[in-house]
């Protein structure tokens, strides 16, 4: 068995684990378990990102998705309640109908996606590959993802910083983190 086949086996393992965790999150009513499983879900997704050769995304997902998200969810859970009410039959069937309809639509479109791993798919032949060709001459750093993030698409990253800032201000205002003024009166 060569390296690529073993990696493929790991991919199947990740898929099974993600599916089981997803189903467990749906079934569980204990919010602490749900939040912890969300962290595990992110961590396994990060491991899968490595095998999909997206090293930078894996690092970010492990740090931000599995780390900060879990802490945020944990804090929110502790400030609210630790238990969810069981799903009612009406909601269950309504969700199942919506899920089936949406699932049928995306699976109908599945055939139009390029074959998995194809080098000549439209997504993999355009500007993405041009970045690889130009980075050694124009930016001259080893990691192309960094070159695109910080240089070619630097404005995107600046916009991202604005979004994070806006969200930070929003959270601070909502939770009255400055401690001034009264709240909970109305």
């Amino acid at each position, binding site marked *: 068995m060569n390296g690529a086949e073993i990696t493929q086996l790991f991919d199947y393992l990740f898929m099974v684990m*993600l599916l089981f965790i997803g189903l467990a999150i749906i079934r569980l009513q204990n919010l602490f378990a749900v939040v912890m499983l969300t962290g595990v879900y992110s961590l396994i*997704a990060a491991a899968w990102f490595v095998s999909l050769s997206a090293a930078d995304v894996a690092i970010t997902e492990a740090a931000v998705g599995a780390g900060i998200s879990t802490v945020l969810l944990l804090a929110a859970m502790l400030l609210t309640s630790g238990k*969810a009410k069981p799903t009612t039959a009406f909601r269950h069937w309504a969700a199942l109908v919506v899920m089936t309809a949406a699932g049928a639509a995306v699976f109908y479109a*599945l055939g139009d996606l*390029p074959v998995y791993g194809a080098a000549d798919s439209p997504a993999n032949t355009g500007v993405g590959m041009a970045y690889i060709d130009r980075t050694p001459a124009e930016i001259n750093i080893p990691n192309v993802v960094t070159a695109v993030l910080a240089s070619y698409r630097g404005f995107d990253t600046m916009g991202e910083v604005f979004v994070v800032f806006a*969200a930070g201000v929003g959270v601070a205002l909502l939770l009255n983190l400055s401690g001034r003024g009264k709240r909970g009166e109305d």
Partner: protein
Amino acid sequence: MIEIIADRFTYAVILVLMMVGLYAVIATGNLVKRMVGLSIFQTSVFLLYIATAKVTGGGPAIFDYSDLAARTIPEDAIYANPLPHVLILTAIVVGVATLAMGLALVVRIREVYGTIEDDELSEIDHDDELKKGV
């Protein structure tokens, strides 16, 4: 039919994961659990993007320093598409920002209403309307 799905098996599994997230958002009335469902859906979308960027036999788009010194890359080198990676890096951080915002709203709702189950929330709202005599 079978061949079409076999070639796109990874995408098919990721789409199923996405539907699991969608179900979790709709089926539960608990607002924290709903945010969890949203974040599962989101992670699945990230996986879909990254899976499209995968090129068979290719590694991450990171060069050797020796190649970089020559300011050129080897002809036979295969790399994964870096552009979706960059887009998803941005999306992960923005996703956490929106999650924080949503959870702050949930905490605020709990402070005012004393519950985070949406059927109880509608009941309280309904009673308030009745009291006001609408």
